[in-house]
């Protein structure tokens, strides 16, 4: 076995895994707050990438601003989705709400196709430096950006939920909506924030991924599936699980493509998901499956 090839596959896997982890975190944010699986999460990533490209190539903004601006815009999209589509359905069955997110996903994809057409657009790498050599493999600097941004985002979210008043209130709402409500916390408002944050995390993933995988209107679907896989693997609602699940899916996909066949790379990830679901339906890191319904 050639070591340099293995290192290369692992690096690729970790990079992809970091993106899947961010998607899984996005799923968790909405799920923890509302119990909804938001199938429009992939479209948040797509919008992040497309908007970054638009800011850079069409509006000629500096690259750093082009990467940051979409975060705010997609947060607004997330909040708007909650206010206009999810909140009016708050008395509906959970399945209805999940179907609504499927509808939103299709609608956002359609809107993107109308706005940007079916083309892929390039975004330059964040750092204009040569690949770094590591154990015979070469590390694309943008991969380091992906890993770093994912790590910073995860840390920032953890600190936000642990130490800020709004973060604590969101956590309280997710665990005990009724008790949070009786403490004067506006549950609907916190749910809106969950959607906004999910949008923001999606946009971050989209912008940092754009120089590696050129964004087009339809990149969201497959990303969402992998991210969903990662979230379920790690245990839905569990952010440490999201990281673990994301890395697992990314590595399996990359190693599978390298050593077995690139044609099977998706199949391998889903196969592992099936096995985990049979053996450990609550996910790798969750202790129980039960969600607190108070």
């Amino acid at each position: 076995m050639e070591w340099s090839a293995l290192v290369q596959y692992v690096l690729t896997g970790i990079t992809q895994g970091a993106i899947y982890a961010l998607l899984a975190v996005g799923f968790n944010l909405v799920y923890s707050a509302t119990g909804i699986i938001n199938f429009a999460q992939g479209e948040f990533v797509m919008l992040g990438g497309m908007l970054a490209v638009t800011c850079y190539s069409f509006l000629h903004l500096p690259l750093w601003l082009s990467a940051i601006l979409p975060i705010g815009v997609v947060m607004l999209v997330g909040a708007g989705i909650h206010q206009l589509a999810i909140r009016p359905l708050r008395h509906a069955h959970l399945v209805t709400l999940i179907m609504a997110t499927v509808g939103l996903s299709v609608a956002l994809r359609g809107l993107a196709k109308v706005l940007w057409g079916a083309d892929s657009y390039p975004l330059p790498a964040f750092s204009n430096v040569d690949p770094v050599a590591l154990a015979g493999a070469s590390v694309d600097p943008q991969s380091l950006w992906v890993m770093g941004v994912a790590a910073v985002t995860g840390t920032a979210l953890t600190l936000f939920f642990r130490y800020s008043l709004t973060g604590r209130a969101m956590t309280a709402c997710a665990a005990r909506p009724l008790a949070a409500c009786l403490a004067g916390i506006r549950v609907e408002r916190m749910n809106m924030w969950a959607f906004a944050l999910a949008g923001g995390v999606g946009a971050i993933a989209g912008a940092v991924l754009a120089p590696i995988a050129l964004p087009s209107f339809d990149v969201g679907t497959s990303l969402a599936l992998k991210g969903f896989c990662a979230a379920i693997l790690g245990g839905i609602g569990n952010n440490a699980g999201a990281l673990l699940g994301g890395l697992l899916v990314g590595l399996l996909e990359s190693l599978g493509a390298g050593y077995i066949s690139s044609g099977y790379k998706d199949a391998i990830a889903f196969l592992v998901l099936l096995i985990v679901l049979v053996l450990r339906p609550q996910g790798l890191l969750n202790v129980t499956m039960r969600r607190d319904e108070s």
Partner: protein
Amino acid sequence: MTAAHFLLRLQSIRVCYDHLEALKGVSLHLEAGEIVALVGANGAGKTTTLAAICGLLPLRGGEIQFQGRSLAGLRPDQIVQLGITQVPEGRMIFAEMPVVDNLRLGAYLRLRAGQRRAVAEDLERMLDLFPILRERKHVLAGNLSGGEQQMLALGRALMARPRLLILDEPTIGLAPRLASQILHTVAELREQGTTILLVEQNVLASLQIADRGYVLETGRVVLQGLSEELLRNRDVQRAYLGKDYEEV
């Protein structure tokens, strides 16, 4: 006695779940400084009444006034802001957060309003009031015993500095000694000026610390009066105090 005299006044309120009328015109009132017990069997409408006061359920009729002001159309958080806080049945502490975070979230609206110092002082007072919580203030609330969790739920509610404290079954599932300790604390809170509306499955214990009581049956107030009158009432004794016909 004028309407403004009452701290809380419910005037023939009606609440429906779909087509089921859970409250069929409930009227009751609390004066400032009172402990009032709400007594009744399961399904009589006690918890529904409390939910309606806190703005969790819409009224189909009647009116709720707090300090002479109608609560119609107010959101639950606005009602908390006015000074009504409820300790829900089953405690509902935030199990995955430490004790101090539970307490601080009780003062959520005050923290939002920037009263950080006052909240920090109240947190200390609460830890004085419940010394067991001070010992365990960094423990995850889910790891507390049932009695400790009830004290935490009570402390969390008090962090909002309520004028009216509503307690739904505060002693359910607790050992008798802990239960009487909780009720003793409730009586002490009244001494400090908090008005209390108490729903309690232990009718005898609740009427012993309450000034007045209301008996609720199938969505209606069927009996009301001073606690000692209710304790002497034969129907109350038979239905809620477990006395046989021969005994009363």
